[in-house]
């Protein structure tokens, strides 16, 4: 399980960070920490387009997205 902290980054940087991570290791499970709802939607959509499953958990004001 690897953690990607994309909190506070402007669009589309969070998705590009996940894209790079998946390029390096597609079989790895990732936890993406995000701070904005639109980032969550973009991460979920991108992960699904790559054949990944996602689940979202709210942690305080942040979001924790599991991509596997």
């Amino acid at each position, binding site marked *: 399980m690897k953690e990607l902290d994309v*909190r*506070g*980054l*402007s*669009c*589309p*940087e969070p*998705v*590009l960070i996940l*894209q790079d991570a998946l390029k390096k290791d597609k079989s790895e499970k990732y936890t993406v920490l995000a*701070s*904005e*709802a*639109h980032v969550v*939607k*973009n991460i979920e*959509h*991108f992960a699904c*387009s790559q054949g990944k499953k996602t689940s979202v958990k709210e942690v305080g*004001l942040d979001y924790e997205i599991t991509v596997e």
Partner: protein
Amino acid sequence: MRFFNTKKGLLTLGIIAGLGTALLAYLGNPKNMAFCIACFIRDTAGAMKFHNAEVVQYFRPEIVGIIFGSFLISLFSKEYRSTAGSSPVIRFFLGVIMMNCALVFLGCPLRMILRMSAGDISSYFGLVGFIAGIATGAFFLRKGFSLGKAYTVKKENGYALPIVVVAIFSLVIAVPSLFAFSEKGPGSMHAIWIASIVVGLLFGVIAQRSRMCFAGSIRDIILLKDFRIFSVIGGIFIVILAYNLITNNFKLVAFGPIAHAQNVWNILSMYAVGFCAVLLGGCPLRQLVLAGTGSSDSAITVLGMFVGAAFAHNFKIAAGAAAAKTAEKAAVSGGPGINGQIFVIVSIVVLFIVAFYGLKKEKN
């Protein structure tokens, strides 16, 4: 709500936003400027006497509506997050650049779409520059460009801009004599304020839900082959095209009303707007929406656009509109003067400097 995250759902939201825009054109907003973020911020700056261009002074309720609409919906959907700290001063000046270059083209990306849907060929030259600018920004994003992280701040920071714009708008209604109102020109053309504020609020809600962004739509296609945001823009284009065809407003001409056919400058100015919007993470409309959802960095960008709009007219950077020859008047070619031309070139150089700056990694 999942539906609105699909291509069909986003197309639907775009169609609703397009209908709102057509309604404003029908009710009196300038026909191919029914909804233009750059022009409306410029008119608002004029109404508050930050510049003295008499034909473009009117406090546009649509701007207030977008900021407050996205503010309300983000509170309601619990998506409101107060953040700040991602290169705010650089963002301010990028806001200034984005506004000035938009006013050299004579419109923001939204108005470019409206002009395109009315058959204005000069706007298609703008589109070429806009796409090239976005592609340049996307290249730097791919290389790791970032203006840095924003951090969570006290929630009241994000309340400031929505509350202030509503307070000033209330003052416009209560004591209009404090403000300037154009008697002729585009500033004198407007829908009744209640319609403007309602459509503005609706537009703010739709733009927040759909993540509508004119630069983002093309950027996501280039970087991620993702056509979702493009569907929203497609919806607006289709509706306005239909409106123009029905009302006999579609005319394939070198330049439409309040536009110019100095196409080198149309391309270069929109190149700067597209490049700048990608570096900022969103077009002028998206900046208003993000400012409403609590981003102080976007609020600073909006203030940069406001100051930039006044600057554009005080320093003669905004382009003039072209006009065809009539019985009384000779033809006017319009376009930017020397000040505007220098500003666009310097802006492009500055954008490259900012893009290289953004490649530097942050030290933790």
